[in-house]
């Protein structure tokens, strides 16, 4: 039996700083996805919300909040939280229920409003919470973790700050015509390199902003799609939401230390490599089959890490791809044709779904101004706090 489900509709609320409630963004995206699918809201029999942790109780029960705002229709409800992988986990819940025959049409929605500046932990003293302790004891911000990874690329593989800047230049160009992107302006390497250093070696323009935004996906059974006259929809081939395998030996946000490898040994794959590996295994394909990738460029340098974690080149060779233009639209394996987080900024519970929306548009040939010609297979990747991460593979 096939484990495919169909993506019948996708939609977003444009990323930005709009000063509105997250529910407004979520409903906008949901209605856009329903319209894209040509399905009335009353046909949806499962709604899955991506939880937002910065918007009070309504955010904790996001699935029900969106359902009420759309008008109660009696659908089953679920809400997921998995940090940056929230949207993918919500998608996985919807997919599993469809494949189990427990529902036919699922709406998956993530939306957020985000504060200005550094993402900081919730208030109050929490001496047993690493996310609090890393600020109190070390002053270790999110960009500082990104900077650790960036510096390793420099000291181990000879990456330069100019390489990192080139990732931003590329993504800014990709996102120029994306109507949902927040930043639609060309950026030069000089702009990046002359912006303030936040955490050495990363400049301000190497680091993604935080944004308001929303994304929604309509998932259905393949049978439902066929009955509605869509014989060859974009299909979800894999959703990987694996946790790390002990010992997790790479310093991960928000931890102050790694697991010890002294007894258990260093695992065959790092956590990020294992996220991608599980997705490929489930889809029954390999990196060589991929037409494009949407990866979580919280920093420019992190995009280079992801290219290797996804197996699109060997470890230490991502800069070679970048310099050759291979990861630019028109190149061998375009990365972040949407413009990525560089052009969007991060809206946590919406971001993994936004990646799925972009891949869907690419596979349908509807990515105006940023189309990857002949795209057949797209892969997404992200990682969040506390052992969360995801990779989704879509294909036509």
């Amino acid at each position, binding site marked *: 039996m096939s484990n495919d489900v169909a993506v019948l509709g996708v939609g977003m609320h444009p990323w930005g700083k709009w000063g509105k409630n997250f529910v407004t963004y979520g409903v906008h995206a949901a209605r856009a996805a329903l319209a894209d699918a040509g399905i009335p809201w009353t046909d949806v029999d499962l709604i899955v919300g991506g939880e937002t942790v910065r918007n009070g109780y309504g955010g904790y029960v996001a699935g029900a909040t969106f359902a009420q705002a759309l008008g109660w229709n009696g659908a089953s409800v679920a809400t997921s939280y998995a940090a940056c992988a929230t949207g993918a986990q919500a998608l996985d819940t919807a997919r599993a229920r469809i494949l189990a025959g427990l529902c036919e049409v699922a709406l998956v929605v993530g939306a957020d409003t985000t504060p200005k*500046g*550094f993402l*900081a*932990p919730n208030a109050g*003293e929490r*001496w047993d919470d690493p996310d*609090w*302790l*890393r*600020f*109190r*004891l*070390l*002053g*270790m*911000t999110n960009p*500082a973790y990104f*900077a*650790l*990874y*960036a*510096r*390793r690329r420099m*000291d*181990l593989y000879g990456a330069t700050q100019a390489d990192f800047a080139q990732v931003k230049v590329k993504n800014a160009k990709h996102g120029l015509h994306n109507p949902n992107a927040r930043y639609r302006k060309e950026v030069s390497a000089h702009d990046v390199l002359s912006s*303030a*250093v*936040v*955490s*050495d*070696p*990363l400049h301000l323009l190497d680091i993604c902003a935080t944004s308001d935004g929303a994304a929604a996906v309509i998932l259905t059974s393949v049978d439902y799609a066929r009955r509605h006259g869509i014989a060859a929809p974009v299909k979800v081939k894999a959703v990987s939401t694996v946790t790390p395998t*002990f*010992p997790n*030996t790479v*310093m991960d946000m928000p*931890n*102050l*230390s*790694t*697991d*010890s*490898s*002294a*007894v*258990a040994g260093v695992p065959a794959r790092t956590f990020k490599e294992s996220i991608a590996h599980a997705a490929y295994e489930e889809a029954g394909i390999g990196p060589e089959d991929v037409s494009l990738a949407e990866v979580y460029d919280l920093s420019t340098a992190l995009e280079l890490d992801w290219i290797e974690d996804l197996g699109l080149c060997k470890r230490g060779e991502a800069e070679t791809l970048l310099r050759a233009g291979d990861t630019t639209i028109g190149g061998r394996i375009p990365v972040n044709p949407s413009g990525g987080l560089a052009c969007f900024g991060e809206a946590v519970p919406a971001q993994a779904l936004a990646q799925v929306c972009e891949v869907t548009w690419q596979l349908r040939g509807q990515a105006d101004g940023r189309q990857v010609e002949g795209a057949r297979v797209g892969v997404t990747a992200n990682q969040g706090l506390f052992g969360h991460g995801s990779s989704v593979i879509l294909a036509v």
Partner: protein
Amino acid sequence: MTQASTPAIEGWFTTGDSPALIGSRCTACTTVFFPRTAGFCRNPVCAGESFEEVELSRRGRIWSYTDAQYQPPPPYIPTHADGEAYAPFALAAVELAEGITVLGQVADGYGVDDLRVGDEVELVVETLYTDETGDRLIWRWLPLDAGHATELGQEADA
């Protein structure tokens, strides 16, 4: 150190002439954890439920490093007096012989120009901030191979 100096967090490191981080070693599988742990061993193939305290290696090698050129948000506590400028500090992730990588600030007076991936560092204890009880102490990593770069003129021997 004055008598009023106390660790900023209890039970994570020793003070004195040869300070060290305090970890927990599972009495069944001998896996070491830092910060200390109790209850259940997190090695998935181990059923251990008892731990003994161990001091971790005082020296290790830099896995990576960076700095904080902007003042971090609360609960970080600024170290400079009101009216003084914020002074950036460096951070390093250090691989220890126990197979653990541990983050820490870099010792006073050293910046990213003094660090390289793979360089050796040693644990020292310095003042993180000062509150009504006196100096609050934290572990830091002191570069031992910093000869190739400039010192910033502050005393670095702890």
